[in-house]
């Protein structure tokens, strides 16, 4: 029906590998996309060397936002937090492998925004402009 919904997206949406919550987590952050009401929370566990050992996402949203969250978390296990801070839009687009218009791009980038906020140790409710480009 549409290239945007290639099988991998639907598969990650229906059977996500990283859906859930980590209690307790070392870092948690949540945010929403006011345009569509999507809500995403990411929990991380970090080892002594500052590397991500476990990650989980929860909340609700469209297939694009949920699948990109799942793919994104899958790509960061074992990586140092500092590396996550450097990730940008292109990394997400490479992961999901589809072209997105400006509206849907916001859906795909929600997970990156939440993840980077967590990595930078931003407090919930604090308003910070993150560079996602």
């Amino acid at each position, binding site marked *: *029906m*549409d290239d945007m*919904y290639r099988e991998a997206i639907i598969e990650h949406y229906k059977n996500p590998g990283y859906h859930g919550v980590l209690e307790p987590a070392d870092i948690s952050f949540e945010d929403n996309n006011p345009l*569509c*009401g999507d809500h995403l929370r990411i929990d991380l566990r970090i080892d002594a060397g500052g590397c991500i050992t476990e990650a989980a996402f929860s909340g609700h*949203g*469209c297939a694009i936002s949920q699948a990109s969250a799942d793919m994104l978390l899958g790509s960061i296990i074992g990586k140092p937090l500092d590396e996550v801070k450097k990730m940008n839009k292109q990394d997400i687009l490479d992961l999901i492998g589809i072209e997105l218009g400006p509206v*849907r791009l916001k859906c795909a980038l929600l997970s990156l925004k939440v993840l980077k906020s967590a990595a930078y140790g931003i407090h919930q409710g604090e308003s910070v402009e993150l560079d996602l480009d």
Partner: protein
Amino acid sequence: MNEITRIRSDFPILQREIKPGVPLIYLDSAATSQKPSLVLDSMSEYYARHNANIHRGVHTLAEEATELYEAARGKISKFIHARSHTEVIYTRNTTEAINLVAYSWGRKFLKPGDIVLLTEMEHHSNLVPWHILRDSIGIELKFIPVTADGLLDMAEYEKLLQLEPKLVSFTHASNVLGTINPVQEMARSAHRAGALVLVDGAQSVPHFSVDVQQLDVDFYAFSAHKMLGPTGIGALYGKRELLEKMQPFMGGGDMIREVRLEGFTANELPYKFEAGTPAIAEAVGFGSAVDYLTQIGMDAIHQHELEITKYAYSLLMNLPGVTLFGHEKQKRGGVIAFEVAGIHPHDVAQLLDSDGIAVRAGHHCAMPLHQKFGIPATTRASFYMYTEKSEIDKLILGLKKVQKLFG
């Protein structure tokens, strides 16, 4: 050629393909309607032949432009059955019309603790202006509840009126539920309780005949762009004696009678509320939209929409996994919001778009209503005079394809 085919041929955009071989199926008229050639041509004709600033100049073009601008106001005034064209104020849209009342009437006549009564089904444009007013002058807001089947709770309304609100402000037709509220009855009760009545007509004036005198409302707000006209213009109807007592909205040229360095005196109605050079070509287009609607006939339009909506409702209702919002039996306006189990509205809308079908996904500027029903968003299909049954059939086919893809 049958009637609907003839009507469709008046709308150039309806001949458009979204991709080669995929015609546009426009089911988003509640967001904004498409425009017939009559409207488009009147606006380009205005710029090509008559363009000038209005109310300030004696040359031929200035006179023609002023005449066209005021003639359009006359048509709009007749269309909603106002007593006089001086009771019709041009605004940018419904939103600005409501803000005008909140500012020019609210700030002059409301005191801390006064109650403004709204409903749970309001568009953000009939909520936020009142939030702002509450936060700045300390009025109190109360809300008429919406029942589980999407109607206003009339028993609760009567109780809330005992609190003696100063104003009751509500929508004539809901842009999510399709509910058409009993305006005349509600206005009568409000007046009996000593309250004024403001009605949001954004989803009613485009779709059925509205008579502000018969409804006996005090203010009535609507937008041209939802009724075949251009964006950037709308109107506020207000009873003359109220408009006269209100303070001006914005200050500047045109809204004044006289200005000295020390101060000003306000112009007469309706100019008192129209500061600065207005949207002249848009007003001309607004007038042409009214001409077109009148020519087709509001009763015929309403009948067609009732039929299309009933058809769509019964097909959607029988789709497994699809839940519809709003009242089932009551005569409803041409909007149907629904949920497809397990699939986010954005995905539904995006996938339908690949078949050329334009629907809207989101909270439709009614977040509190969605919160009430416990859902973040819905998909909404909305219809107008040019919607065909075959388009509804394609929507249903499209939805089945979406379900299969996610199945």
